[in-house]
């Protein structure tokens, strides 16, 4: 990015570096949220519906991990993916893939905990009917997840918000490499440390606008869905 430009000028001028950073931020955080959902939503449903030994313990841990410090997650993933670490041969450190994995770990407990609560509440309402219809356990999970889809959309947005806003994780596992692993949040951190506070603030406003846009789009999709399905 050019020295001394205001953030708005970069947006309007179509600055390629800025657009690349925005694109990377979105790709990483959206991918991380989707990846976290693949594990987190079924896990949440499982915790809601199945009683097994140790369940309470896992529920408490999952709830607590909603507040996992991003920098700690970043450090843990860094140690795992480092060449000197157990998964070093994968060569994932300092790449966007590592950032997606680390953010997914960060977001997963949020999705699982909120899904568990949603499904638990919904099951209390649906239990008699679904039991009377002799629905098998897998079909039960699918039905509840689908019927809860609007609440789950909000849950996914909460997860995405967490991912898009954090800097500790992606800084450590991504390395903030110019043109490769630099995201909005790490760019803001960098410009701040270079003392270019107006640019950092401008980038911050752009990031917030992006998050608002994503939420607005999701809201639109949800409204359309609600009108169709009640």
């Amino acid at each position, binding site marked *: 990015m050019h*020295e001394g430009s205001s953030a708005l000028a970069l947006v309007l001028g179509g600055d390629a570096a800025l657009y690349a950073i925005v*694109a990377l931020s979105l*790709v990483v955080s*959206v*991918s991380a949220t*989707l990846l976290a959902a693949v594990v987190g939503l079924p896990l949440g449903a499982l915790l809601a519906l199945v009683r097994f030994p140790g369940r309470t313990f896992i529920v408490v841990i999952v709830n607590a991990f909603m507040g996992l410090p991003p920098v700690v997650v970043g450090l843990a993933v860094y140690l795992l993916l*480092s*060449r*000197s*670490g157990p998964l*070093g*041969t994968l*060569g994932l*450190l*300092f*790449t*966007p*893939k590592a950032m*997606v994995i680390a953010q997914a770990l960060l977001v997963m407990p949020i999705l699982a905990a909120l899904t568990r609560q949603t499904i638990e509440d919904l099951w209390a309402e649906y239990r008699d009917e679904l039991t009377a219809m002799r629905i098998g356990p897998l079909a039960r999970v699918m039905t509840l997840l689908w019927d809860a889809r609007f609440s789950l959309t909000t849950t996914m947005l909460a997860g995405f918000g967490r991912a898009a806003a954090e800097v500790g994780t992606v800084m450590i596992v991504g*390395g*903030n*490499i*110019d043109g*490769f*692993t630099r995201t909005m949040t790490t760019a803001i951190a*960098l410009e*701040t*440390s*270079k*003392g*270019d*506070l107006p640019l950092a603030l401008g980038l911050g406003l752009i990031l917030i606008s992006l998050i608002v846009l994503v939420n607005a789009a999701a809201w639109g999709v949800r409204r359309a869905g609600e009108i169709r399905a009640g």
Partner: protein
Amino acid sequence: MQTRRLFIASAVAAALWAPALAQEKSIVVASTTSTEDSGLFGHILPIFRQATGIDVKVIAQGTGQALDTARRGDADVAFVHARAAEEKFVQEGAGVKRFPVMYNDFVLIGPKSDPAGIKGSKDIVAALKAVQAKGVPFVSRGDRSGTHQAELALWKQAGIDIATGRGPWYRDIGQGMGAALNTASSMNAYVLADRGTWISFKNRGDLAIAVEGDAKLFNQYGVILVNPDKHPHVKAALGQAFIDWLISRPGQKAIADYKIDGQQLFFPNADRPGA
């Protein structure tokens, strides 16, 4: 619903995987915040890529952390400024050979109001003694970086054991140069900085250069290839190509050409044997 999700997932996967395929010719360089924050890499790396087609990915950390990263094999090359630590790095077999590249100097930055009464001095040791004696706020990077290690060495030369001689005036923040300058700016404190970062720093507030020009403030940068015997995956050929270029005429010229507001930040000296 299912097919649409699958499509999005594939598009995302392509976005993540494609760059990796495109950049087969690349190396990872662990370097310091002073080289990154000052904009030096932004200037010289495109020239290097033009000449060789090699993409350099820079991880900007403090010297201590950069050498650790290199030790772990997470970088191919280390480019830092703490000679003692660099030589130890080579000695222990983590690096192949140290090459001097360039130097700049440190400057003592402080508030224009100059509470320690040291402005314009060329004697850093006397200045530090004054800071400690008057208990004036001083920000330390505290992060094992090259700058931090230089600062500690200077306290030692001033005859002050900073571990015991520190007081509430000594603010140890454990962060990079930019953060240290920001902190000093908001606290109106003194801070030791490398000239390159200072020149490109934009949030000066009430700060200005207080002490400069002392020979003790000389700051040498060196570059080392990570030892492929220890980490076989290291891109030794490409990494060595980067080192060779840095100490060659075109590389040294690129470094010398980097200026902010007409001021040169780094001075190439690869040809000085004892650097």
